[in-house]
């Protein structure tokens, strides 16, 4: 299945002037280049969002600190949340989907390459629009710069009365634009997965990553629409004098909450399902075993997708709902822990009895398993309405969802970076630096987010810019901020490792991990057309079949070899 390269030879690439090469990147419709653009763009915003988080933690390191003003603090938590969700997490998961899905299903590109480029540039300009608010947010009124209404922007804070100037308009527009980009990406992904699989790759033989991305794309399609609709309504209110969220004219602030969280909670699963996807590819390869319970993994993911559409109002327990509504959303939220638990057991069973190789990607995946479990457990705590009445809006909630997003999603993203870096760049990263990054980040993560639960339990509300001494919060806030230093050091090692390895790393070869999915059958980096001849697959691990013709997988799979 080796592929002859008929494109540019390396010397020809080097000979082309810089402007030419940049022009090539800007006008590209190649799924691999767009995937890398998505990922690089997200890393830039990861650093920006991280700086915003660091500013907040410096402000909270001791009581009565005055590192930044309350106004700037409000802008920091708004921009941090919005940036991390919409301009880091979303582009990164779409970036990996772009890069990996066509390669894994044996296709030459996405179904609609130009739509793909369009989606990326919409997302990119959405991010620029958001950050332009620092410059342009003054508008005509001389009020506000960056958005300061929080990342879920509850009404009536977003009305003209309370949010003068244009900062909220920048927030709305940028999310609207990026949301349309995401919908385009999801449409493309669905069409690619259903319509472009190579011969023999039935739905039951797709790599798990592709299955999980199919579910994720379905969620994007159903969840981003409500966000787009809600943003359109907010713009109608702000620009045309509408009354959707205007309580003075009969409108309702609670309706905004419902509409936002109808998007907002599936969004969590939109981000975590790709994290599951990475773990489902990486854990088997470094355990030297096929994934345990493939059909159950698919079923659990589909179940998560369905249930996640019906849990949103657990964000509204503290607002006050009827007993029936409370009960329904308590039960649905707790129910989603079941398929998620099944997944954790399947990953453990995959590792069980395997010959585990603790390379950097595997280290991150193992940490993910433990951390995601704890994140899930605090999730079950918060799912119970009486508990939520006590803890809602406190640092406990902040600690919980950062445990999911950092401890779960970001750890898997780091695993994915290290695992597919050799494929994308053609070079190996430095293992020693990878481990250093891992340990710095594990220590930093646990210092920050384990201890963040405690001031929450002690009653510290989220989004406060400072606090009184002597409430028992001081030492915990200090520890949380110390953890940030470790995380920052970890990120610096990570970025340094990437930069050094791209230029100087050892050649990786096409298959450094002895893996089993089709992307490893192409040279690293793959040529523009991916496959000189389209592969034909007979099992879930096509490369295993090629490497082990005496004992191919399809003998043991249902409908194998068909």
């Amino acid at each position: 299945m080796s592929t002859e390269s008929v494109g540019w030879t390396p010397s020809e690439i080097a000979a082309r002037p810089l402007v030419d090469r940049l022009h090539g990147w800007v006008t590209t419709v190649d799924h691999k280049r767009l995937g890398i653009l998505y990922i690089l763009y997200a890393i830039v915003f990861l650093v920006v969002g991280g700086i915003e988080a660091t500013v907040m933690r410096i402000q909270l390191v001791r009581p009565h600190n005055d590192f930044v003003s309350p106004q700037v603090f409000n802008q920091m938590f708004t921009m941090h949340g919005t940036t991390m969700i919409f301009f880091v997490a979303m582009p990164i998961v779409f970036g990996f989907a772009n890069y990996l899905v066509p390669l894994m299903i044996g296709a030459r590109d996405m179904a609609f390459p130009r739509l793909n480029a369009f989606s990326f540039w919409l997302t990119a300009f959405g991010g620029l629009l958001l950050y332009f608010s620092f410059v342009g947010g003054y508008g005509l009124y001389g009020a506000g710069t960056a958005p300061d209404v929080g990342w879920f922007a509850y009404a009536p804070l977003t009305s003209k009365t309370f949010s003068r100037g244009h900062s909220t308009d920048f927030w709305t527009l940028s999310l609207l634009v990026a949301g349309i980009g995401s919908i385009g990406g999801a449409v493309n992904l669905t069409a690619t997965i259903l319509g472009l699989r190579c011969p023999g790759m039935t739905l039951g033989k797709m790599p798990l990553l592709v299955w999980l991305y199919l579910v994720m794309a379905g969620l994007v399609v159903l969840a981003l629409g409500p966000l787009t609709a809600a943003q359109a309504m907010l713009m109608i209110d702000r620009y045309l004098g509408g009354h959707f969220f205007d309580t003075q004219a009969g409108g309702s602030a609670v309706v905004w909450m419902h509409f936002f969280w109808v998007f907002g909670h599936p969004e969590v699963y939109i981000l975590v399902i790709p994290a599951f996807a990475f773990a489902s590819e990486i854990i088997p390869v470094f355990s030297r075993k096929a994934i345990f319970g493939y059909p159950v993994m698919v079923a659990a993911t589909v179940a998560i997708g369905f249930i996640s559409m019906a849990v949103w109002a657990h964000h509204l327990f503290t607002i006050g709902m009827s007993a029936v509504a409370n009960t329904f959303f308590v039960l649905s939220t707790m129910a989603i822990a079941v398929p998620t638990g099944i997944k954790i057991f399947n990953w453990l069973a995959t590792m069980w009895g395997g010959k585990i190789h603790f390379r950097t990607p595997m280290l991150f995946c193992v940490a993910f398993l433990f951390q995601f479990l704890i994140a899930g457990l605090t999730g079950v705590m918060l799912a119970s309405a009486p508990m939520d009445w006590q803890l809602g809006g406190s640092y406990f909630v902040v600690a919980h969802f950062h445990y999911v997003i950092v401890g779960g999603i970001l750890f898997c993203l780091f695993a994915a970076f290290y695992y597919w870096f050799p494929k994308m760049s053609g070079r190996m990263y430095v293992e020693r630096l990878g481990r250093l990054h891992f340990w710095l980040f594990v220590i930093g993560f646990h210092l920050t987010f384990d201890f963040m639960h405690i001031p929450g339990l002690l009653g510290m509300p989220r989004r406060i810019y400072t606090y009184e001494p002597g409430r028992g919060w001081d030492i915990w806030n200090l520890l949380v901020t110390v953890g940030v230093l470790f995380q920052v050091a970890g990120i610096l090692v990570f970025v340094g490792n990437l930069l050094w390895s791209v230029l100087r790393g050892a050649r990786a070869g096409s298959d450094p991990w002895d893996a089993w999915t089709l992307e490893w059958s192409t040279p690293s980096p793959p040529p523009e057309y991916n496959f000189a001849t389209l592969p034909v697959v007979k099992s879930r691990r096509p490369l295993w079949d090629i490497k082990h013709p005496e004992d191919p997988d399809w003998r043991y799979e249902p409908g194998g070899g068909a």
Partner: protein
Amino acid sequence: MSATAAAPAAELRWELPSPGRVGMFTLIAAEAAIFVIFVVAYLFYLGKGISGPTPAILHAPVFISVCLFSSSATIHLAVVALRKGNVARFGLWWVLTFVLGAIFLGGTAREWNHLIRVEGLWIDTNLFGTTYYSLVGLHALHVTVGLLLLGAVALFTLFRAVRQEHAEDVDILSLYWHFVDAVWVVVFTVVYIIGR
């Protein structure tokens, strides 16, 4: 439904749904989610406004609705004609679809003109105005986009660029138009039957 991959293994029968069709259905699902939110908002806010006018001032636009519903039939006949290779008949049905859609849009414009000038209802007048113009306007926006696409194909047909092999593409476009029609069934029911 067309086979996409040129399989080197000749013995393998390999057919997949066409990406265009899957893509259009996915887009329709995303659009449907947007409409669901606007419909829910309309129903939730019914009667919640604190000043007039109320939905009682609306008159069901029966004629233009019949036009829009009929256009689903004409676009279907157009696609069938192109499948059979009858480009002239295709063009005729296609232009008729465009005209029916344009009549619908014109009717909406007339209705809005009446509401604004005679009844004094605009989007910022009250909560009813906000929800009414948003929902009906969102649908009208989709009709407009549909008309632009229909118009483009009509021009292609005029310049003899449309041939039998484009039947699949035109069929996929017709899915969008059917969706715009189906949404009007919901909006019409909600706004002019339930809501009044």
